[in-house]
């Protein structure tokens, strides 16, 4: 009996020692909604994690969970990570919000960060990226490069993030060509290469000569390449798939932000934050401008610089689709309106699905 007791105590001591050792080192954990092999949204977050590993080396331990479905299922994923001694947990999808918040309240000593949401706690901060900034530049390029004056836009779901992107793209295009037309096709999926390719074909067949997308796969760009048309990449630099078609790509570059937050956690200065980062923070990054003449490239670079300097694409005068005034001359939209955006700007010929 004594022997057994001794063995148990020894075992417990060892476990504690291991735990203590683990606690010395910061463990940063990531939860992804898709597979890291999607070459899109989750892939880019994973690249951010890789940047953290490169930057900190042995000082930080990292791990991730991929393909975690949004909703109640996510709660188990976050709880598991919290129990596995993760000190800093990044939930990278909007739909994780409530689950992550619940787990955050249960583990007050663990630091939580949630991407693209709006709920916070004493130990849970939020971060987001102004992807619309890149889309404004893309809209300008489209208007310059299009011969038909029509661009196609392949979209997933009518959430504010997507609507904001469409509006920004259109405002950019209208700044060059006031009569620019946008054909919008909803595929009702974030990721379905086949359907995205079909949508691209339909748009080209109907007169668009440039396409852009708010879905995750490289399929639409591949169609553009095949047809000798033009397009924009999404989330990651897709130039390999469309060397003659990609004009630029609106890439997500989470590395700098993740490194900053891990550093803060290491220093003990971490506090829940509420940030919306953009081109100026290098989180939204436009891939090299290709397949366009020098003057278009110069214009795109100038606009990129202007936005980096603090100019907001949603600066008045801007009118709603029904013709009513939204932003007065010189008025800049507040972030709250953008984050809840549920209307089109003037000139878009589509009914926003509800």
């Amino acid at each position, binding site marked *: 009996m004594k022997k057994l007791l001794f063995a148990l105590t020894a075992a417990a001591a060892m476990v504690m020692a291991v735990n203590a050792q683990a606690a010395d080192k910061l463990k940063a954990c990531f939860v992804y909604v898709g597979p890291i092999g999607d070459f899109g949204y989750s892939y880019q977050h994973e690249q951010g994690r890789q940047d953290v590993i490169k930057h900190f080396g042995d000082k930080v331990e990292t791990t991730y969970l991929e393909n975690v479905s949004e909703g109640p299922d996510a709660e188990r994923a976050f709880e598991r990570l919290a129990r596995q001694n993760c000190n800093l947990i990044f939930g990278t999808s909007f739909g994780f919000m409530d689950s992550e918040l619940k787990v955050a309240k249960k583990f007050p000593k663990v630091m939580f960060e949630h991407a693209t949401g709006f709920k916070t706690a004493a130990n849970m901060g939020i971060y987001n990226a102004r992807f619309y900034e890149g889309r404004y530049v893309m809209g300008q390029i489209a208007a310059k490069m299009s011969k038909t004056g029509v661009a196609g836009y392949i979209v997933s779901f009518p959430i504010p993030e997507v609507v904001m992107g469409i509006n920004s793209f259109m405002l950019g295009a209208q700044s060059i060509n006031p009569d620019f037309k946008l054909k919008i096709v909803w595929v009702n999926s974030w990721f379905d290469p086949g359907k*995205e390719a079909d949508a691209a074909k339909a748009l080209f067949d109907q007169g668009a000569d440039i396409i852009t997308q708010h879905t995750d796969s490289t399929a639409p760009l591949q169609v553009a390449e095949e047809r000798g048309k033009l397009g924009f990449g999404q989330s990651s630099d897709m130039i390999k798939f469309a060397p003659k078609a990609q004009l630029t790509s609106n890439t997500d570059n989470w590395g700098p932000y993740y490194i900053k937050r891990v550093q803060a956690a290491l220093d003990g200065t971490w506090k829940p934050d509420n940030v919306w980062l953009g081109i100026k923070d290098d989180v939204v990054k436009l891939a090299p401008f290709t397949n366009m003449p020098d003057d278009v490239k110069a214009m795109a670079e100038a606009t990129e610089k202007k936005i980096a300097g603090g100019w907001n694409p949603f600066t008045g005068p801007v009118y709603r689709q029904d013709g009513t005034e939204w932003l007065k001359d010189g008025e800049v939209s507040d972030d709250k309106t953008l984050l809840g955006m549920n209307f089109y700007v003037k000139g878009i010929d589509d009914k926003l*699905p509800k």
Partner: protein
Amino acid sequence: MNILEAVLITIVTASTPLLIAAMGELVVERSGVLNLGVEGMMVMGSVSGFAAAYMTGSPWLGALAAIIVGAVFSLLFAFLTLTLVTNQVATGLALTLLGLGLSGMLGEPFVGHPGVRMDNIHIPGLSDLPLVGGLLFGEDPLFYISILLVIAVSWFLFKTRAGLTLRSVGDNHGSAHALGIPVIGIRYLAVMFGGACAGLAGAQLSLVYTPQWVENMTAGRGWIALALVVFASWRPWRVFAGAYLFGALTIAQLHVQAIDLNSLGFLPGPFYWLLAALKSVPTQFLSSLPYLATIVVLVLISRNRRLTMVNTPASLGRAFVPDR
């Protein structure tokens, strides 16, 4: 190329994978086995087809690899359900989950690389005919294979002795066994045929439809193929019609969304109003049409018991132990 031809060609590409996968599953179900693992076998075909084509440079070797991998992968299902007599529904679902996970792991090094495309055929003269040239004589090779597959399966099931035997196994495995027919052996072959077809259908996605590899790229097409078999009440030519109906619905709704009604004022009234009406329907509803159509067909055929009885393999999904 006019717009009608362009639309039709797009429909063909969208329908082919559904058709190939569903033809395979039709034979499996006709032998009395319900394999819900189509999605998993398909995605294994996508990854192996892409990988083989990428490494060898030959899309044909890719297609061959996908067929082999699909068949071998389905053997796992066959061994579990036929030899070990596990539950077919649960095993099929497990096969799908395994396929999705395994393909993601095996395919990791291939993410982010453009693939090798299987080129469309080109017959000088014929392929250049106006309107029908591209559609009938300039498609990708897998389209022709899919049509041959329908003819072959239809002939095999209803015109050959072997086909009759296979159907008898599916309709009453007890009697077939009593007659000395090797029930288990035939089902093994049927399941492997289904796996091979699913593999080829998956390769169509990664070699023709969208020449690339990304995880979960089948995006539910295996499930549509499964629904198609029921939709077609286990008849090969109805599967063919169904696959093209599903494909056409998908593509048509994308086109309807992109159409600019203002530029179509020249259309005769009824056509114009039809398009206008379609355009006002929520896109979410249009996207779900294939699934709704399947439900409607299921409701209709289950209303008529005799009709259902005639075509449904009576032993479908039921376990068979020879010595009982």
